[in-house]
């Protein structure tokens, strides 16, 4: 039940180990890793800066994790989100959910990713030499999040 917002990269294997060690009730572990894609909005851009609102990101992500724990029977849940400068191929977000039931682990994972994309205060700035461009929010992300509303 951990949320970390950090500049540094993360170690997926170490986080997996930490979340599952010593618990033999877990049958399913679903790991979502978000990577920086080639910059669709600024072709040729080589650098991306992820700005965030420090206190609020932590708070919003913790609220999402709390809701996931309430809605699904999870044994463990971890969210790590990076900020700062990132390049294509870099890891940007890690979500791990563990449960006795695989569907709970899948659903909680997708819920967390869909919602953090629409709720966690991060903004992507793509840069290509002199050109700078703030990435625009996608309606498809709002729609993805909306399906979890109840």
């Amino acid at each position, binding site marked *: 039940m951990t949320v970390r917002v950090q500049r540094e990269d993360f170690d997926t294997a170490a986080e997996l180990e930490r979340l599952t060690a010593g618990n033999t009730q877990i049958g399913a572990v679903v790991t979502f890793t*978000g990577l920086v894609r080639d910059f669709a909005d600024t072709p040729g851009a080589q650098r991306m800066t*992820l*700005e*965030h*609102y420090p*206190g*609020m*990101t932590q*708070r*919003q992500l913790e609220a999402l994790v709390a809701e996931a724990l309430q809605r699904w029977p999870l044994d463990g849940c971890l969210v790590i*989100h990076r900020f700062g400068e990132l390049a294509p191929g870099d890891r*940007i*977000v890690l979500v791990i959910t563990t449960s006795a039931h695989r569907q709970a682990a899948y659903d909680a994972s997708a819920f967390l*990713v869909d919602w*953090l*994309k*629409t*709720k*966690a*205060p*991060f*903004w*992507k*700035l793509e840069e290509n030499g002199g050109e700078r461009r*703030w*990435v*625009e*929010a*996608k309606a498809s*992300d709002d729609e993805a999040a909306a399906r979890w509303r109840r």
Partner: protein
Amino acid sequence: MRVLYFALLRERVGIPEETVTPPADVRTVADLVAWLRGRSAQHEAALADAALVRVAVNQDYARPDQAVAPGDEIAFFPPVTGG
């Protein structure tokens, strides 16, 4: 009252934050937005299009009719694009 701006809104206003003391009749988020828009052309440019402005009061998302008080931390930012 501490007001924060992020991303494109920060660039448009030209400052990352400011401490303001609005008049007593500024009671809600909507009142505050209207009052801030009058402070400068930069504020107006940043806050004019409501569809592009999200507001948080004390780090929780807030609606226009939500009350604001002197000790609050109010943040304005564009729709988020993390993950």
